[in-house]
């Protein structure tokens, strides 16, 4: 048709679309049947399509740190031990285990019915190979610190392994033993420094897990298919496709259109998720996430080095309101560096309630007087500092601004804020070039005191704020060696209380993680770390 006419046709369609949208109330065909999760018998079949914002980097847990990586690795590999949804260790490739009296030797009895995806048998050789890697001096990877206490990994027989430690390691099961076992018959002959760059990691991963690697289309998706010979039985769902969708609006759009079965929601999208649940198009579940957010103080700052100042700042920030406004109520205020579902969680630490009057008192008593321009001063030093946050995290940006506003109005502080690009932000933090930084840690399922609070980590480690308390150091060292869990938790909780009092961080909150999934999906279990915990036992309800 003539060019002019073609254009008018397009215009007409556009206007018609607008018109139709205005008339449409937004509902659409929902193919979900009754959304109860325990109907009927598990049935084989189906392709589980999950969506994530970024793609994987490598399929090898000893060489990666991203959470996308571990999600996909979990489909294909197993460690010796697995932490369940209650943070209790469960057997994985190891059937059972024992610790020596002095805690310096662990013996693991391995399953004898496991085969690798290529048909070879799994034996102790694989375990020895895998856990000897990170202690080898030629190992070039980010996971060495989890294996610091390892001295030697010894094969006792085909299905028994002994690990010798230099010091007792109470976090052994939660940390080191979760790393996925790698096939010795494929990687064993390589020079250690080449293991990390071998094609195994990106093109041909072979594991023992419930799913086998099928395909990775860069930038598009990763596909795994059911392992018929999985030692816990063939998974019900035939295959899993992990779709890489870099835009979170697109993720939601795809889910709404039925192109995705499963995705994690950010706080901002929870209302959309609720809408879908109401329409019967989705199920939404949440769990306390294994992470927390905080404001990191640089204790060399002339004002922030004073504990009184930090206490005042804590009293001066209304954390409950922050959670209500910024997170829509989806989170809990924290006062210690731990999350409530962890076994070591001090229920009664020093708490700094929101009390601006008290904050002012504390500052007055500490000698910080309000100056002529409204900013407090002491010995010529102004109560002035900056807060930095990394780009792309709107939650942290908002909190930063609330803090600035409340501290300036009530406490007479002078606060500047800055948003810095992610990698540059990390760089600045590592170089201690900040006053206060908006940060978060994702925590291990082992309750131990993080090295971020250890004096020794100031020099080159993760203690970016120059925090140092010998008491905490001592408690940390002791708890790191204490074999008895109960005693260990006591030590840890004691340290937590001291840290709370010291306020090297202004602890903010731990939020809930939300997952949205297809109502036909059965057997779904929420887990604080593993998004697809026991995925081989999930199944699709048939209509």
């Amino acid at each position, binding site marked *: 048709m003539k*060019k*002019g006419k*073609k*254009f008018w046709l397009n*215009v007409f369609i556009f206007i018609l*679309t607008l018109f139709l*949208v205005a008339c*449409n109330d937004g509902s659409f065909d929902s193919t979900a049947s009754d959304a109860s999760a325990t109907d009927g018998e598990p049935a084989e079949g189906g*392709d589980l*399509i999950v969506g994530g914002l*970024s793609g994987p980097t*490598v399929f090898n847990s000893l*060489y990666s*740190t*991203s959470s996308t990586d571990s999600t996909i690795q979990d489909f294909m590999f197993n460690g010796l031990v697995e932490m369940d949804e209650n943070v209790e260790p469960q057997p994985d490739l190891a059937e059972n285990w024992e610790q020596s009296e002095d805690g310096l030797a662990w013996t693991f009895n391995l399953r004898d019915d496991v085969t690798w995806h290529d048909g070879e048998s799994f034996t102790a050789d694989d375990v020895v190979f895998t856990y000897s890697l990170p202690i080898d001096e030629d190992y*070039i*990877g*980010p*996971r*060495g*610190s989890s294996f*610091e206490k390892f001295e030697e990994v010894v094969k006792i027989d085909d299905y028994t392994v002994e690990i010798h430690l230099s010091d007792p390691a109470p976090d052994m099961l939660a940390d080191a033993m979760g790393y996925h076992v790698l096939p010795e018959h494929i990687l064993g002959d390589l020079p250690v*420094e080449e293991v*990390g*760059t*071998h094609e195994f*990691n*990106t093109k041909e991963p072979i594991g023992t897990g419930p799913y086998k690697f099928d395909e990775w*289309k*860069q*930038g*598009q*998706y990763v596909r795994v298919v059911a392992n018929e010979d999985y030692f816990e039985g063939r998974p019900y769902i035939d295959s899993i496709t992990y*779709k*890489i*969708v*870099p*835009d979170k609006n*697109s993720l939601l*759009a*795809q889910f709404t*259109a039925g*192109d995705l079965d499963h995705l994690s929601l950010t706080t901002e999208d929870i209302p959309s998720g609720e809408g879908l649940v109401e329409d019967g198009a989705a199920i939404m579940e949440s769990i306390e996430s294994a992470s927390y957010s905080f404001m990191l103080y640089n204790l060399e700052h002339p004002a922030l080095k004073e504990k009184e100042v930090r206490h005042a700042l804590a009293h001066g920030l209304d954390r409950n309101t922050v959670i209500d406004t910024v997170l829509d109520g989806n989170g809990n205020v924290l006062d210690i560096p731990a999350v409530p579902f962890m076994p070591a969680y001090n229920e009664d630490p020093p708490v700094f309630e929101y009390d601006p009057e008290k904050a002012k008192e504390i500052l007055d008593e500490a000698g910080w007087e309000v100056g002529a321009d409204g900013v407090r001063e002491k010995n010529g030093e102004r109560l002035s500092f900056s807060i930095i946050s990394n780009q792309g995290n709107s939650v942290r940006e908002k909190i930063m601004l609330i803090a600035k506003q409340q501290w300036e109005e009530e406490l007479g502080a002078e606060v500047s804020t800055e948003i810095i*690009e*992610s*990698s*540059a*932000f990390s*760089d600045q933090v*590592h170089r201690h070039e900040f006053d206060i930084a908006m940060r978060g*840690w*994702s925590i*291990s399922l082992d309750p131990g005191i*993080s*090295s*971020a609070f250890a004096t020794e980590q100031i*020099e*080159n*480690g*993760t203690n970016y704020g120059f925090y140092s308390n010998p008491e905490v150091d001592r408690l940390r060292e002791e708890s790191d060696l204490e074999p008895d869990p109960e005693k260990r938790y006591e030590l840890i909780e004691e340290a937590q209380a001291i840290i709370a009092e010291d306020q090297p961080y202004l602890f903010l909150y731990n939020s809930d993680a939300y997952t949205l999934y297809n109502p036909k999906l059965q057997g779904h279990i929420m887990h604080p770390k593993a998004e697809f915990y026991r995925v081989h036992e999930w199944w699709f309800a048939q209509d």
Partner: protein
Amino acid sequence: MITYIIRRCLLTIPVLVGISMVSFGIVQLAPGEPTALFIDPEISAEDREAYLEHYGLNDPIPVQYVKWMGQILQGNLGYSLINQGMTVQEMILARLPNTLLLMIVSAIIAFAIAIPIGVYSATKPYTLKDYTFTTFSFLGVATPNFWIGLLAVTFLSVQFGWFPTGGVATLNEPFSIFDRLHHLILPAVVLGTSDMASLTRYSRTSMLDVLDQDYIRTARAKGFKQGKVVYKHGLRNGLIPVITMTGLMLPNFIGGSVIIEKVFNWPGIGLLFIDATFQRDYPLIMGLVMVSALLVVVGNLLADILYAIFDPRIEY
């Protein structure tokens, strides 16, 4: 003409070298490094150091540059720092065809719509139709790509289900040209909109200018009907400046496609570029810079050659 092409190709080399030096310097000088985003708190300082040493990231910048240059001259673009084990070449090649496809189809659509509209507007200037087209053109230029893209996805894909929500092809289905086209249309049209709009304006102006020329009057005096006058005599002349525009449009496509890639989940090099930059994956960044630079240079050369073909007055 052949000597001209050869000369241009030879000139490309110093240009690319210059670009590589400047880019290398800038990227390296920016604060941050690849391990900065390793988020686990328990990564020890030794592990981090070992990593930096192994990849030569502690060497002074000029040394790193020379090493990189040496690699390039051997035809090796290096390994990604983040996706360890994958070569830069394979990462780029996995996505480059998608970007090229999107760019080319987008350009074709833009031209196919813009030129007829521009020509029509020039033959009937200052009429209601002309003003309408002009208004839509300006709207097209002023409206951000991603907003149009999001609208398109929300309504046409999610609400009506006429188009897929994203991606290159339907998952797990065998290859089909129709399926590919179905996925390609929306992102290509959206990517083309702002260029389409400026192309329309440009061809309209160019044609208005041409239709005012004496040789058009001659053509009419020969007894040709309006159609022949405009298309045989007018358009050939009117298109010449428009072709120059094409060369300038290329960098836009490469850069502008990032947003489209995000919205439509199109696995092209745009997103790869952004991610590589944020992660400080230096070899990948440099590889992408060189590829983009090459594309732009080649594109410009093509535009100049086309220009010479279309306009007999140009002789190289």
